[in-house]
C-alpha cells in the first residue's frame, strides 16, 4: 500500500513536470492524464468499482483532450517562468509536504497519520502549487484547462487525505466531474485551435479594442 502511494506520488510529480515543461501539446496532455490517473491512488480509495470508474473517467477526459491536439501539432504557449522554475516550485512544495506532513496532518486529519498519508499530502501540495500557477499565469488555453482540472483534483485529494475514502456514490460523482471538466476543456481547446490555429491566449493586435 505504501509502495503504491509512493509510486502514485512519483507519477503525479512526473505528470506535473511534463505538463509544465512541455512545448508540445500532446506531451502536456499525456502529463495531465498521468496526474489524473495517479491522483486517486494517493489517498485511500473506496470500492474497486468506484476506483475503476474514476480511472475510466480520467482516461476518457484525457482522450477528449488528446483528440483535439493529436493531429494538429499545436504549439503551446511559453510557460510564464520558463517551465524549469515552475517544476522547482512543485518539487519544493512536495518536499515541504513530506517534511512537515506529520505535523500538518496531526491536527486536521480524521485518519491516522501514516507514510501513505504523508506521501499523499506531499503530492497534494504539489498539485495545488501547479494548479495555482496554471490557473493564474498560464499563457495558453490547454494549460488553463489543465489548471482547472488540477484545482478540482486538489480539492478531491484534500478531502481524501483529511477525511478518508469516499463511498461508491462519491467515486461516481467525482468521475462525472472529471468527465465534465474534460468535456468543457476539450471544447475550449478545440474552439481555440479552430479560431486561432494555436493555443495562445494573449490578445492579438486586431483583438485589442482601439488597436
Amino acid at each position, binding site marked *: 500500500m505504501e509502495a503504491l502511494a509512493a509510486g502514485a506520488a512519483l507519477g503525479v510529480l512526473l505528470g506535473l513536470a511534463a505538463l509544465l515543461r512541455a512545448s508540445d501539446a500532446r506531451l502536456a496532455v499525456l502529463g495531465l492524464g498521468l496526474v489524473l490517473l495517479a491522483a486517486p491512488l494517493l489517498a485511500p480509495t*473506496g*470500492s474497486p468499482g468506484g476506483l475503476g470508474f474514476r480511472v475510466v473517467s480520467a482516461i476518457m477526459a484525457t482522450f477528449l483532450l488528446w483528440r483535439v491536439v493529436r493531429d494538429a501539432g499545436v504549439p503551446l504557449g511559453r510557460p510564464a517562468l520558463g517551465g524549469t522554475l515552475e517544476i522547482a516550485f512543485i518539487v519544493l512544495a512536495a518536499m515541504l509536504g513530506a517534511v512537515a506532513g506529520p505535523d500538518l496532518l496531526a*491536527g*486536521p486529519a*480524521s*485518519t491516522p497519520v501514516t507514510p501513505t498519508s504523508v506521501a499523499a499530502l506531499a503530492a497534494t501540495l504539489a498539485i495545488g502549487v501547479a*494548479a495555482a500557477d496554471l*490557473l493564474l499565469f498560464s499563457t495558453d*488555453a490547454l494549460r*488553463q*484547462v489543465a*489548471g*482547472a*482540472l488540477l*484545482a*478540482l483534483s*486538489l*480539492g*478531491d485529494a*484534500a*478531502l*481524501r*487525505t*483529511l*477525511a*478518508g*475514502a*469516499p*463511498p*461508491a*456514490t*462519491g467515486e*461516481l*460523482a*467525482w468521475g*462525472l*466531474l472529471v*468527465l*465534465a*471538466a474534460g*468535456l*468543457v*476543456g476539450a*471544447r*475550449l481547446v478545440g*474552439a*481555440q485551435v*479552430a*479560431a486561432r490555429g494555436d493555443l495562445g*491566449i494573449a*490578445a*492579438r493586435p486586431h*483583438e485589442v479594442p482601439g488597436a
Partner: protein
Amino acid sequence: MLLAYPAAMGLGALLLALVPERRGRWLLPATLLAAVVALLALPAGQPLRLEGGELAASPYLRLWLLAAAVSLGAAWATATLAGAPPGPRVLAGLAGGLALVAPALAAPRPAEGLALAVAGGAVALAGLVRPGAGALRLARDLLRDLAAAGMLALLAVALLLPEPFRPPELDLVAGLALVGALALRLGLMPLHGSAIRLAESAPLAGPVLIAWLPAAFVAALLGWHAAVAGSPETELAAVRLLLAALCAATIVLSGLASLAKDDLRAVAGYAVLAELALAGLVFASTDAAALSAARGWLLLAVVARSGLFALVLLLEAWHGTRRLPELNGWARVAPASGAVLLLALAAILAATLGWPGSDPFAWRLRLAQSSAWPLSVVALLGVVPLALAHVRLAWHGLRRPAEHLVADVPMEPGDRPPLPPALDDEPAPGPLPPRAWPRPGLGPLAPAARLRGPAERLRAAAAPRLSGARAAALARAVAAMGAGRRRMARLSGPGAALASRADALATTVRVDGRLPAALAVLVLALMALGLAAGYGGLAEAARMAGGAALPSPGGAP
C-alpha cells in the same frame, strides 16, 4: 425512478448534441416533457439505495426539478416564438447541466453534491464554448472560476468538520475557503465580472449558468452548513462578518447597477446576483431557521429571474435593441403583448418582493437578519433599487413610443454602439449572414402583408401621408369594423358601441403575432408568483428538506 429525470435529460442532451439541427427542433421540448412525466411519476419517500448512502427524492427536490424543467421549456418557447431559436449545442449543454442537478441535490453527502453541481456547471458551459476571441476568453474565465469555487468548497468541507471533531486552528482557513467558493460561484462583488459578461452574452443560457446551477451549488452546501457552522467561534465569527459584508455590498451595488444600466441583459444579470447574494447570507448565520428561508428563496428567486431574462430576450428579439432608452414605448406599440409583458413584470416584482405575511417577504427578512446590524439593514434596503429597476423598465414601456419602434424600421448602423453577439446562437459555417431586422411576421406593425382587399387598398392609399405602420393600423381598424359590421347592424345604442370596441380589440389581438411568446414569459412569471403565494407548498418543502449526511471522522464528508 429517481434516476429517470437525469436519465431523460441526459439522453435528450446527448441527442441534441449529436442530431442535426433541423431534426432536433423538437428534441428539447420532448426531453423536458419526458423529464416532467418522470418527476410526476416519482413516488415520494422511496430512496434509491446505493453503496454508502442513498439518494432521496424530497418534495423540495421534486419542486426544484419541476421548476427547472418548466423554466427551461418556457425560455426555449419564448426564444423560438420570438424568432431567435437557440442552437442545439447550447440546449444540449443546458439540459445536461440540469440533469446533474437532480443527483446533486439528492446526494447523501455534501462533497458528492458539490462535485455534481460543479459538473453540471461544466457541462452547461461546454455548450456555450465557440470560436471567437471574446467568447473564448469568457469561457476560460468561467471555467477558472468554476474550478476554483469547486476546489475551495471541497477544501472547506474537508476542513470544517462538525463539533467536536473540528480542529479550531483551521477554522479560519476553512472559513476563508468557503467565502472564496461562495464569492466565485455566486458572483459576489468584486468577483462578479464573469457572471455579468455571461448574462450580457447569453440571454437564454444565462439564467441556467448564473442562477440555476449556482443555486444548486448553494443548496448542496446548505445541509453541511447546518451541521458545522452553528457554533460562534471567534475565527468563524470574523469570516461570517466578511461574508455578510460581501453579500450586503453585492445586494446594494447590484441593485444600483441594475437601476443604472441601460443594457437590459445587464439589468437582469445584476438582479440575479443580488438575489443570490441574499441567499448567500445564510452562511453568515448561526441560526438554523435561516436554512429553510434560504432554500425557499433560492428556488423562488431563480424562477422569477428566469422570467425576467425571458422578457429581456423577447424585447430584444422584437425590437432589435436591448438598450432601454431605445425601447421607449415597447408596451404601447403592441398593446396586447405589451400588456401581457407588463403583467409578467409586475408578477416577477411581486414574487420577489412579497407582501407582509407572504413567504418571500418573511424569507427576505430572515436572511437579511442573518448578518449583524448595520449590514442587515443594508441588505434589506438593497431591494429598493432593484424594485425601482423593474419600475423603470415598465415606465420606459409606457412612454411615448420611440420613432424606430413605431415606424418599424431599423436604426442606422451608426446610431448606437455595437453590442456583442449572443452566444446562444449556433455558429453558422463560414461568414455569418446579416441578421434580418426587424424579424418578418412579428408584431402588429409587420402584418400589413396579411391585409387583403379593401384594407390593403386603404393602406396603399394612406401610405404617402402616414408612416407604414400607422397606415397599416388604420387599415386594420377599418377591416375590423367591416368584419363586425353585420353583427353590429343588429345592435343599437350602447350594445353596438360595446360590440364595436370588442371586435376591434379581438382583431388587434388576432393580428398581434407576438402574443404567444409573451404568454410564455407570463407562464414563468406566474409560476414565480404562485410559488410566492404558497401554491406548490414551497415553504413546507423547504422546511422539510433534509440536509446532507454529516461528515464523521474516519468517513468521508
